[in-house]
């Protein structure tokens, strides 16, 4: 469950104040946030992930107010309850695919069994390249790895920032379906932020910034 109220953000004093619409998502609900470039989509996502502190308003995830958490609590909360997917499919460069997933689990401090990694590797068709270093992975493998990194620890909220903008139609469809499937399996809220209108049909609920 995720809820925002009267969320505003200002990068520097005197600059324009960004304000964001209130959203309320029930358990397992998904949301598409559409908007042109430069309108503050990523800022909204970072506010939801607790990476930025809002100037005003509140973000509640499972009734926990992110603003009320200390620096360390926020790190911990993020590690356990939030999964982020980025446009560039980054993971830790010096580690292998498998070690990246192990690292993600380790940092979440959640006790999740190793079978979870195995299952996910199979679901995302990453079993063959699990020992490859991130640098050696193909585009598609990186894309799937970044989804795996976002869901391995069974977060409450999956936040995806422009996950499809550089993909062709078919891959775009694949990625969205994988994200939705993983959100369903982990019973998480999925919020996708994009300017890519191709994925509008996959979501029941959408807002425009």
């Amino acid at each position, binding site marked *: 469950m995720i809820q925002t109220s009267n969320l505003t953000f200002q990068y520097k004093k005197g600059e324009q104040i960004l304000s964001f619409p209130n959203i309320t998502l029930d358990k397992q609900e998904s949301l598409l946030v559409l908007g042109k470039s430069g309108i503050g989509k*990523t800022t909204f996502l970072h506010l939801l992930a607790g*990476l930025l502190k809002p100037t005003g308003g509140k973000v509640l995830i499972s009734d926990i107010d992110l603003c009320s958490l200390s620096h360390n609590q926020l790190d*911990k909360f993020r590690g*356990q309850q939030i999964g982020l997917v980025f446009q560039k499919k980054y993971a*830790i*460069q010096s580690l292998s695919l498998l070690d990246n997933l*192990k690292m993600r689990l380790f940092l*979440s401090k959640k006790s999740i069994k190793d079978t979870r990694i195995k299952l996910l590797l199979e679901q995302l068709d990453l079993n063959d390249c699990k020992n490859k270093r991130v640098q050696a992975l193909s585009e598609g493998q990186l894309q799937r790895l970044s989804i795996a990194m976002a869901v391995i620890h069974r977060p409450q909220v999956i936040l995806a920032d422009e996950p499809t903008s550089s993909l062709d139609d078919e891959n775009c469809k694949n990625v969205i379906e994988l994200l939705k499937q993983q959100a369903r399996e982990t019973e998480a809220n999925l919020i996708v932020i994009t300017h890519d209108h191709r994925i509008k049909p996959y979501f029941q609920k959408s807002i425009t910034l």
Partner: protein
Amino acid sequence: MMIWKTSLYNLKSKPLYTILNIFSLSLSMLLLLGIRQLKISFEHQVAHNLGNIDLVIGAKGSPLQLVLSSVLHLDNPIGNILYEEAKKISKNPMVKTAVPISYGDHYKGYRIVGTTNDFMTLYDAKLERGQKVDNVLEVIIGSTVAAELQLDIGDTFLSSHGLTEHSIEVHAEKLTVVGILKPTRKVIDHLIITGLESIWDIHHHENEMMDEHKEHDHEEEHRKEFDTEGHEEKEITSLLVSFRNPVAFLNLPRKINEETNMQAALPKYELNKLYNYLSLGIDTIAVIAYLILMISVMTIFISLYKMVKERSFDLALLRTYGASNFQLIQMILFEGLIIVMIAFIIGVLVLKIGANVVFELLGQKDKVHMFVTLPFQEILQIGVVVVILIILTVLLAIIPIIKMNISTILNNEK
């Protein structure tokens, strides 16, 4: 565990930087350790090998040479003194013990010292097995000699004339091992000890043989030693004296130097003089070693700082995975510490192996005892200094992490 692993993989992913860092750091550690080693070895010589020897009396010449040859058994003897004359000094009331020594022979590079049983008390040496020397041509051997030459009680060997392994003139008399000493970590471990009479006997016979061959002009020293049959003026190389009373330090050496044709040298004073000559060189190397340490710490700083900057996205990503600032700092600290540990091990190993190889190459096996094993405490001291420097370095290198704005970094990389 994952943090350690990441640090290790980070290092592995940039091998050139890692090798450069390890190389420069181990070089500076090697120098630092080496200098410490030199200093300690020297101090050990002064403090331990002197045993209870306050004064050395020998033939006139260089006092330093007298000390080196008669106390540390490193250099050649200057010449001999008359036993009768030396005996007079032992009767001085200020003298506690006076031990005559006479040498000039070796067995496989280990010196044979003719002396009395008091010699052992100078070094607080105790017999491990066997008995003291009672008869002519019996020897007791130091622990290192026993181990290196694999000699045991009852074994016999022929001594050679001269003091180095390469002299080949062999004496005819067989020496028999009757005792083995416990290890003392002093110079006595490397010596073969026998009675004065054995040395005299060996050279006496030799002299007779020479007479037969009419080589009178040769070995003048020996002829003088035994100039008339039956009435020999016995000679020794030097007399090791310990005082009963510190006042003797003031009077006795001057008296001997002025009133006899022998010289008296104070080992502590001579060795300190030598140490002062050397310490200028040692200090210079120490300064260079610290400079290299500074440079290598700076190299490590630059590569860690660069890594923090270059990997800022990775680090920001780790933060989004839930890593705390502290965990990121740990990761970089581990990278620094892994470099230090490897460099340290290399430094210590090269020093240990290097010292042995150098002495082996120089063919001076008998001088390895100059090298004292560096005490663990000393190694630890240098280790602690380096680790503190590295921790400071890491603290500087992670400033960008503390200042990191995850949101901005993620945005910029998009």
